[in-house]
């Protein structure tokens, strides 16, 4: 056994000030739960990492796990999805906290969506102002008073979590519209077991590949009044959509039809799909496009991606839509601020996972404070996603600060300000086979059918540029396989907990197959001496 002090595979590995590293202690020694992993990495050395990286790119190109980039001459090219080969590791204890915290949060968000379109209790209790709710762009008037089948609105959620310099997990953003990325979680794990099987030795990693079954189960569970097997479909905007890979992946894994708008039709407030044998009824639609586009009769009339009459069918309760229409109101960045209060109000519980401290700029006092501290804070537009328009104070020049100040003053309600979180780091291969710290976040995926189920781990996104905290893949981010170690916590199914079963004894099966076969083999292979003596084979001169 090597001594821990010799276990440093990384020369000059310095964790950026203010952040914590998840695999290494502050003094550079490995944390106890990843000892074996770092030992293996050290033994393999940089060459093995580089070589595995090349194999990874070839395999991803061949499998078509790519995204399109624009080269300098304007042409579109496929690039392999950047998976970093060093996994991120969470202990079972950490995961239990995250899992419970997310389940609690999602339950509260689901209550909130139901409340917003029905009783308005949280408004009457004076916690969230009604004017703020109705002014959200994702507030969906057409579904006011419509109760989703099964009372579930947020079937698929992906909350973004970050870990600050104090080591605590916080929720940075909720995503209860159409979160994407789960396909990469599954493909990453598969790729890692093929590319770096050595790393798994000495660890028991919880499996993730049951996600499609969880999702299908949930989608079936919410199908409205069906006497036979419900028909579930996945609705994609089409092959040109950036996440088409994921749509096709999920449809394939669940064994359901991948439909486009032209495949669906509404007759008598019932949704059908056009098949080779005529129209067939659809019970649940897992849609992967925004509210705005789904029904040109109710939302944007210019949408070519929509199905006219879909909302009519939804109101009539003949079809379940996942996620439900109008859920966007719950993951708006201005509503985010109120989520801890929601948890207290609806569930009478204290929030397990905290928010990042957030300031609403419509409040005069807070706005004044924010404008003074603008160079320390992060400012985000409330209704954007994918890292668009995010302003990071400490990384901005004086001119940019001035410009942002004007933007805020012009329309304070469009923005929120947040304290900067020094994202935790994880060792990452940076192109030369050596490891350096890079900032990461985490998006676990939850499925809400009869109950809330969360796949162990989630998508870890990593900012591949040194010092950068922008992890979006559209802006140079990569991803990592995320391991949740299994140290025997009850309640979670793992293959390791199954009792060993000895194989059955089959005395009638003998080595060498059946009698006749063995005889034939004997006949066709005469002894070497016969062969040489006989005239069948010409004797060598």
């Amino acid at each position: 056994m090597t001594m821990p002090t010799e276990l440093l595979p990384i020369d000059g590995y310095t964790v950026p000030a203010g952040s914590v590293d998840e695999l290494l202690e502050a003094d550079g020694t490995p944390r106890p739960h990843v000892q074996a992993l770092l030992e293996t990495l050290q033994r393999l050395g940089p060459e093995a990492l580089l070589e595995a990286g090349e194999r990874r790119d070839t395999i991803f190109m061949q499998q078509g796990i790519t995204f399109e980039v624009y080269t300098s001459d304007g042409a579109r090219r496929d690039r392999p999805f950047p998976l970093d080969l060093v996994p991120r590791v969470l202990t079972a204890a950490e995961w239990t906290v995250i899992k419970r915290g997310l389940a609690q949060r999602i339950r509260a968000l689901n209550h909130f969506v139901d409340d917003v379109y029905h009783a308005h209790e949280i408004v009457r209790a004076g916690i969230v102002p009604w004017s703020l709710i109705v002014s959200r762009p994702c507030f969906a008037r057409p579904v006011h008073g419509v109760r989703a089948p099964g009372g579930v609105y947020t079937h698929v959620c992906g909350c973004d979590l970050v870990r600050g310099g104090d080591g605590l997990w916080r929720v940075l953003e909720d995503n209860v519209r159409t979160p994407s990325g789960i396909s990469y979680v599954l493909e990453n794990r598969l790729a890692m077991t093929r590319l770096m099987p050595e790393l798994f030795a000495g660890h028991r990693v919880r499996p993730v590949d049951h996600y499609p079954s969880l999702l299908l189960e949930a989608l079936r569970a919410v199908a409205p009044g069906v006497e036979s097997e419900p028909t579930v479909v996945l609705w994609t905007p089409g092959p040109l959509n950036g996440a088409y890979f994921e749509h096709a992946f999920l449809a394939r894994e669940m064994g359901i039809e991948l439909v486009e708008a032209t495949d669906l039709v509404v007759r008598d407030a019932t949704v059908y799909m056009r098949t080779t044998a005529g129209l067939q009824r659809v019970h649940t639609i897992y849609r992967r496009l925004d509210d705005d586009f789904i029904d040109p009769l109710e939302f944007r009339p210019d949408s070519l991606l929509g199905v006219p009459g879909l909302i009519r069918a939804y109101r009539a309760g003949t079809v379940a839509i996942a996620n439900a229409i109008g859920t966007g109101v719950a993951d708006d960045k201005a509503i985010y601020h109120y989520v801890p209060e929601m948890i207290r109000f609806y569930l009478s519980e204290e929030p397990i996972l905290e928010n990042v401290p957030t300031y609403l700029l419509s409040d005069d006092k807070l706005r004044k404070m924010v404008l003074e501290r603008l160079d320390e804070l992060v400012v985000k537009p409330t209704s954007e996603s994918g890292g668009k328009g995010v302003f990071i104070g400490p990384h901005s020049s004086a001119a940019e600060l001035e410009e942002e100040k004007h933007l805020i003053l012009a329309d304070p309600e469009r923005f929120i300000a947040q304290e900067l979180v020094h994202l935790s780091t994880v060792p990452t291969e940076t192109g030369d086979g050596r490891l350096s710290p890079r900032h990461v976040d985490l998006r676990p995926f939850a499925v809400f059918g009869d109950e809330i189920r969360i796949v162990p781990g989630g998508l870890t996104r990593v900012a591949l540029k040194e010092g950068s905290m922008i992890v979006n893949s559209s802006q140079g981010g990569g991803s990592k396989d995320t391991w949740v170690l299994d140290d025997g916590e009850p309640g979670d199914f793992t293959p390791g907990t199954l009792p060993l079963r000895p194989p059955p004894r089959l005395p009638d099966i003998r080595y060498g197959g059946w009698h006749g076969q063995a005889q034939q083999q004997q006949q066709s292979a005469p002894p070497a001496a016969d062969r040489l003596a006989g005239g069948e084979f010409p004797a060598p001169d």
Partner: protein
Amino acid sequence: MLARIAQELFWLGRDMTRAEQTARMLDGAFHADVTGNSSDGGGGVTLSWAGVLAVIGAKPPVPGEEEREEEDAAERIPPAYLGRSEIAPLLTLDTESPASVVSCIARARERGRTLRDVISTEMWEALNSFYLSLGHYDLQAALLTGPYSVYQEVKERCALFWGLVERTMLRDEGRSFLEAGGRIEEADMVLRMLRVAIPAGDSEEERHEAEALALLQAVGGFQAYRRSVREVPDLRRVGRFMLYEGAYPGSVASSLEDLRAALETADAAPRSSPPVLRLGRMIADMELQRRTPEAIGSLSELLVRIQDELELVDHDIDERYFAIAALAAVHL
């Protein structure tokens, strides 16, 4: 199964077969070209380049003819001076020309991408790496030095694809449409080749005997012919073999049989299905023709008739299975 998906699968099958048949034919033409030049001159030149173009129905690479799109196929036969250096690249590499092998594979791969949830992962990977490998090749150079290896690769990759279909794809409706597309395209391509090789009203049979041989080589049926017919190949025998021989998988008769079987599996009510019924009539008619001794002239007429019928079958398939999807596209 979704009508749109069924149509994509049908065309995936067509594109793959089209690519393979084109590669085989070009390979045959190259072979004929080389052997023709090395032996006693003109007499050995068999499957002419102009003939290949006529089979494909592609336009010759002559500038300034773009406006005459809707010409009759017969009129498109290019001037005799067009040869290997013009036509082979046009039908192999040209991404502009929809008939080229590269275009077929690019289309097939795009369809495969749309169909990733329906076809097996291994099929998709075979398609994708096929497409990528064509991109890696310096095809222009490969064509000049060793075209054999290029066409060999196309043939092998197509065989890999169909082998994976056989091994990994669920034998459901989708598989039937894929199969149907492949078979109808194969029947169509063989008919085109036969029609070019056996022109109407031509009595000079001997002149075409070598062409018959090249034709057999082009579809990869030379050995099958030898084992099945055991007589010297002449144009008439080869024509009959490629048309009627049910034991040879590339013949028109067995393509039509397979097409009918595929549609019968896919259709919920095959007994009232127009394409199945029409195919049944065609197959019976061909069987009758096979038993009737005929002159070479009437063979060429028969070819025209069969191809016309086949077009109607294609139309019927479109009407019965895919029209519902097209309807939606029109409404939008």
